[in-house]
């Protein structure tokens, strides 16, 4: 939930040495003098909105004079330089990337036509390449200023068909983002919101980047190509000058201010639940419970399980009926045992626990999925390494008709859900129609005759259903909402509840961006009702779970690391819980077996874990 602290040990030694050398580099002694000398010759920019009214008047007069001169120039048969197409080409290993802009100069805010082509001209029998969320990414750089919109795409890697000798055309598409505190936020927002490519005056570089692999993976050395075209926008040619001066007020290059949601008043905390501090099992040798190794999961049917790492190949199993009293019930031995973390599902004969496995031995990716099965929670069998696990991080599991369905994310966003009949052999669901690039899954559940996943699809809140776990359909007719993500699922007395998050954010303090959170409820997972934004949950990053008498959420608010708990009896009205104080936490988790709710968090100060348990919500 928080940004990790930079740890240079994560870098290869050679890179550390290189950066270490740079950290001791001192600027030449004459550099400051050189800068000051140049500064003395360089006028500062002035923002147009600060120009005094009288100056605007003078400026208008000056423009009029130039316009007259220009009219004379044009009427006299003079022809402004006709800027033709400009292009740049980059090539490597038989691939040619060409960026073309139809003119080298434009009037301010005039539509700009740019596109790139990617062609394979080599002799290898290449039929596809693997790349990120888009094969060609476009960026924009203000050559003389600070406005810069680097393109952004999702993580690699998906396949793209390639026909040797046949160019593929990519129209200039915008991507990227900004922080509201960015001095150029308004410009970037306007740029991204405008479906046309239009720019204010200045010298701009349009860039096309292609990065892909020819092997069946994105982890190998990619082929990277970049092409750059510089264009001038503004009064640099007679044509553009005329257009700039005679055009009706153009779409503003600096554009409307960002709309922000008001910061709601937090409701008072209420004593809606009783919480008992508990001591979780401690690792015997090394490795914390929770986090990247080991983990706590609620058990289907009741109770909790804690996988405590004692060594990379040995994990102790602890069980608890109530989350408070724990007993060691066995251990799991074998390579990669420390990746066993849960969550866990049960299909009546087999428990399936998900987990992770480091790369290197069986996988190229640094983080990969893993799974174990057990008939009794004592004896566990690790699923074999398989293609479906490569680059996968699992986050949820459910069981129903068709077997088990796991959700998570994968390097390259190959899939967001996976299916298995036996828990040992898994298949990624790669239906792009249902799960286009960028889809995210937050929770999965089985609902009497169908699986349900909630999350995000094409940047909007989304839900999917499937009768068999393999064929999925997006749920149609979801409530209109600015939310971009449905976070979590809890099935309690008020039916299904999820939290719609990710709408327009408010910067309540420097860098502290908070978005409204609106509860959505449903009886069947298909017909959803959105409710008013929750004042209590405004800005929350929280997990939710059902509990006797209602629902519980645990998480943090914005940049505030204090662990918080909220409850609701109906899933729509939420209140913070009084009388429970959690420390600042670097991570906080919530698991519920339907009878009790266990909240555990890692103290940001000490790194140790704190845990509390509750028997439910009391009206």
């Amino acid at each position, binding site marked *: 939930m928080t*940004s990790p*602290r*930079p*740890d*240079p040990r994560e*870098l*290869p*030694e*050679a*890179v550390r*040495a*290189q*950066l*270490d*050398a*740079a*950290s001791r*580099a*001192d*600027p030449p002694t004459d*550099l*400051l003098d*050189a*800068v*000051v000398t*140049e*500064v003395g010759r*360089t006028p*500062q*920019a*002035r*923002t147009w909105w600060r120009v005094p009214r009288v100056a605007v008047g003078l400026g208008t007069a000056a423009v009029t004079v130039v316009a007259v001169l220009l009219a004379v120039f044009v009427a006299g048969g003079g022809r402004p330089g006709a800027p033709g197409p400009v292009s740049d080409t*980059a090539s490597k290993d038989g691939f040619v990337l060409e960026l073309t802009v139809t003119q080298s100069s434009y009037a301010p805010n005039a539509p700009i036509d740019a596109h790139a082509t990617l062609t394979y001209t080599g002799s290898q029998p290449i039929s596809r390449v693997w790349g990120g969320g888009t094969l060609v990414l476009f960026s924009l*750089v203000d*050559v*003389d200023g*600070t406005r*810069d919109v*680097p393109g*952004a*795409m999702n*993580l690699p890697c998906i396949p793209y068909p390639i026909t040797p000798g046949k160019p593929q055309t990519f129209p200039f598409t915008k991507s*990227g983002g*900004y*922080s509201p*505190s*960015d*001095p*150029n936020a308004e410009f*970037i927002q306007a740029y991204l919101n405008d479906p046309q490519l239009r720019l204010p005056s200045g010298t701009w*570089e349009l860039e096309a980047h292609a*990065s892909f692999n020819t092997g069946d993976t994105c*982890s190998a*050395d990619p082929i*990277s190509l*970049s092409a*750059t075209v510089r264009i001038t926008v503004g009064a640099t040619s007679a044509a553009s000058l005329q257009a700039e001066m005679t055009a009706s007020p153009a779409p503003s290059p600096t554009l409307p201010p960002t709309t922000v949601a008001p910061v709601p008043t937090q409701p008072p905390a209420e004593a809606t639940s009783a919480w008992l501090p508990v001591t979780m099992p401690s690792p015997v040798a090394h490795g914390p419970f929770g986090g990247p190794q080991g983990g706590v999961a609620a058990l289907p049917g009741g109770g909790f399980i804690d996988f405590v790492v004692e060594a990379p190949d040995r994990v102790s199993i602890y069980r608890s009926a109530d989350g408070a009293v724990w007993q060691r019930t066995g251990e799991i031995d074998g390579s990669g045992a420390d990746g066993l973390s849960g969550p866990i599902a049960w299909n009546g004969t087999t428990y399936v626990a998900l987990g992770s496995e480091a790369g290197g031995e069986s996988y190229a*990716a*640094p983080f990969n999925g893993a799974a174990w099965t057990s008939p009794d929670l004592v004896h566990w069998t690790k699923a074999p390494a398989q293609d479906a696990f490569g680059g996968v991080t699992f986050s949820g599991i459910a069981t129903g008709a068709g077997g088990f369905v796991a959700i998570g994310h994968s390097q390259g966003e190959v899939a967001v859900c996976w299916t298995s009949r036996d828990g040992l052999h898994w298949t990624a669901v790669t239906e792009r129609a249902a799960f286009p690039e960028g889809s995210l899954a937050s929770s999965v559940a089985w609902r009497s005759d169908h699986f349900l996943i909630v999350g995000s699809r094409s940047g909007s809140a989304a839900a999917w259903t499937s009768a068999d776990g393999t064929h999925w359909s997006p749920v149609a007719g979801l409530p209109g909402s600015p939310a971009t993500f449905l976070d979590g699922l809890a099935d309690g007395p008020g039916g299904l509840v999820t939290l719609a998050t990710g709408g327009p954010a408010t910067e309540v303090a*420097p860098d502290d961006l908070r978005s409204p959170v609106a509860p959505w409820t449903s009886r069947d997972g298909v017909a959803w009702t959105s409710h008013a934004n929750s004042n209590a949950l405004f800005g929350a990053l929280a997990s939710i779970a059902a509990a006797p008498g209602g629902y519980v959420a645990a998480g943090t608010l914005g940049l505030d690391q204090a662990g918080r708990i909220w409850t609701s009896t109906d899933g729509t009205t939420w209140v913070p819980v009084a009388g429970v104080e959690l420390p600042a936490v670097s991570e906080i988790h919530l698991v519920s077996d339907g009878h009790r709710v266990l909240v555990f968090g890692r103290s940001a100060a000490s790194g140790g874990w704190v845990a509390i348990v509750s028997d439910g919500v009391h009206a």
Partner: protein
Amino acid sequence: MIRARQGDITAFERLAERHMTDLYRLATALVGAADARDLTQETLLAAWRELPRLRDPERFLPWLRRIAVNRCRNHLRSRSRHPAENLLEAVPSGRSGLADADRRLDMADALGVLPVAQRAVVVLHYFVGLPLREVAETLGVPEGTVKSRLNAALTTLRSELAEVPA
């Protein structure tokens, strides 16, 4: 700061002096020592020109770093055909037992093979020491994009390093 925004060169000189070493080292990490001087100078001149447009003086340092990164990005892209050559000069010979020229080439390549955007993320996070949120602010991209780039960069670096003979 306010005086510098109003055109006071002496005030700007003090600002430049305060941040010059950090900027120079950032440029060295991004483009190599041979070009760090020019890019530091370009950065400070651009900052001087654009200072009146800086709406929030409290954000001066992230803004300054962003100018530096943009300048370095432009520079790297303009010489993208041979990114490793100048980077070599950022690595003093004989350090860390890596005196051998081939070994130094590999070491420079470890950063040089990264796309420019990923290199910026690695340098700002690990070299400047910025949390990912501040890296995102400096680059003007969402934090998720920074995480994606960092993940991809680390994967590439580890992959590249695995090919270096021990």
